[in-house]
């Protein structure tokens, strides 16, 4: 019987350990542009019935309630928090999506068979071929395939995601292409690929593509990027709570161990 309390405590410690891992990763990414915080969701495990409700007792009355003992806790999953981060003043080519939507990025990754990944981290740059890429060490191309070559004085991205190029000595802006955003029915079902990228899954549903500012898509703000949406205070409070809960479960193990030791010493 004390074995059950040992198991409950062990399940608690392992679940809380996972929660601590999630918090640690959130805190580590407190300055990562476009990062979305996760939380570990807990649920209680099944209950064993030591006696069923409704059983008749000696007086022929029905027992109104059963005798249930829980078997502990588990992490049912982690869930992203897709609330937007704050716009932070950045470089000329940084973009911030005000509202829903993800930028589409080309990837070669087995985890994303469609070859497209999605990100909110709009820190863009041009590579040596003049292609619009993410300003990460991988330099991934945007899926819209926008190339800006030649002599460029200025690049403007308007709120609908249209890229406009100012050539020196030319008054009119040249059309450089259109950024398309993607949205998902269930963004919480996206899977993370690292590098601030997400891949669509069966759970997220297929991407719904569209221009910024239309339908449910947000608008684009040039010159700003999205900060991490991790709130360090909340995370630290959660960390303290998880750590204390972990300690209490380790105390349960000690108490259950005490019980088992006493029982073992019964026969001298």
């Amino acid at each position, binding site marked *: 019987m004390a074995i059950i309390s040992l198991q409950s405590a062990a399940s608690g410690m392992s679940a809380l350990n996972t929660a601590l891992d999630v918090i640690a990763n959130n805190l580590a990414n407190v300055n990562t542009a476009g990062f979305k915080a996760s939380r570990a969701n807990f649920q209680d495990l099944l209950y064993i019935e030591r006696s069923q409700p409704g059983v008749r007792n000696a007086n022929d009355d029905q027992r109104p309630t059963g005798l249930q003992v829980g078997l502990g806790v588990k992490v*049912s999953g982690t869930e992203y928090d897709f609330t937007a981060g704050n716009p932070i003043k950045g470089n000329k080519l940084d973009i911030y999506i005000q509202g829903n939507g993800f930028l589409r990025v080309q990837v070669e990754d087995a985890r994303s068979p469609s070859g497209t990944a999605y990100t909110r981290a709009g820190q863009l740059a041009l590579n040596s071929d003049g292609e619009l890429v993410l300003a990460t060490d991988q330099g991934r191309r945007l899926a819209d395939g926008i190339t800006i070559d030649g002599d460029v004085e200025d690049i403007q991205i308007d709120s609908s995601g249209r890229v406009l190029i100012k050539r020196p000595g030319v008054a009119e802006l040249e059309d450089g292409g259109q950024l398309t955003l993607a949205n998902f029915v269930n963004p919480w079902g996206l899977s993370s690929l690292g590098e601030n990228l997400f891949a669509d899954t069966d759970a997220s549903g297929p991407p719904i593509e569209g221009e910024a500012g239309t339908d449910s898509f947000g608008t684009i703000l040039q010159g700003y990027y999205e900060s991490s949406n991790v709130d360090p205070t909340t995370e630290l409070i959660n960390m303290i709570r998880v750590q*204390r809960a972990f300690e209490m479960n380790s105390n349960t193990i000690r*108490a259950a161990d005490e019980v088992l030791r006493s029982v073992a010493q019964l026969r001298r």
Partner: protein
Amino acid sequence: MNYGYAIGASGVLAAMHRQDVAANNLANVTTTGFKMDLGATVPREAARVEDGLYNLPSNKLLERLGAGVLLAPTRTVFEQGPIETTGKPLDVAIRGDGFLAVGGAGAGGTQTVRYTRDGRMTLDPRGILVSVTDGSPVLDAQNNAIRLDPGQKIAIDGDGTIRQGGREVARLAFVDIADRTALRKAGANRFDVPAAALASSAPARGSIVQEAIEGSAVDPIRAMMAVQSAANAVSASLRMMSMHDELTGRAISQLGRIS
């Protein structure tokens, strides 16, 4: 045989049961919408009462002889847990009385409705409102699944009415079950409600708070003390058993000695 053995053993088993229940409470100290269980015990009736003997002067000794302890049904304490704001539009907490309804697979492939205080929801690829724990649909007042438009802002009122774009699109089932003792925990933060108890259900008096969740209602200090006090009770009962053991040993070696 020495009766005290059996009494001591019943104390050990009952205390271990209490420890199991308290350990589960402590393991769920951070589980959303979790309600604390009480591992209750009842004294076993005295030998005379249990054997149905008459109240005779000669039975007085049996009257006074206790018979140890039995396990009583586990009771769940439906105390309000702390409301924690999360800022996620599809998280709801319940302040006061009330449960949300969640569909799920029951025994033999049937559909069953379970009740929960865990209001963490999300949308599945079809836009259906589901529980985050295992993707079971969260039901409306008519026990149907709810389909929402993912592109529009979702507002949930205090009575469970879901609004999108200013229009009422659905209403969460939000019921109170008067007979709380009939609720049985089914895992995944849910309760099974027998049909008889469901008949006593009424519209909930509590209110739904959007962008928040109800934390675990476990009081960690009480749960910790319950674990430790159960361990102490086991030690004490075991000590009684070894005393009886010693007594029996002495009876064998001294009383029964043939000199």
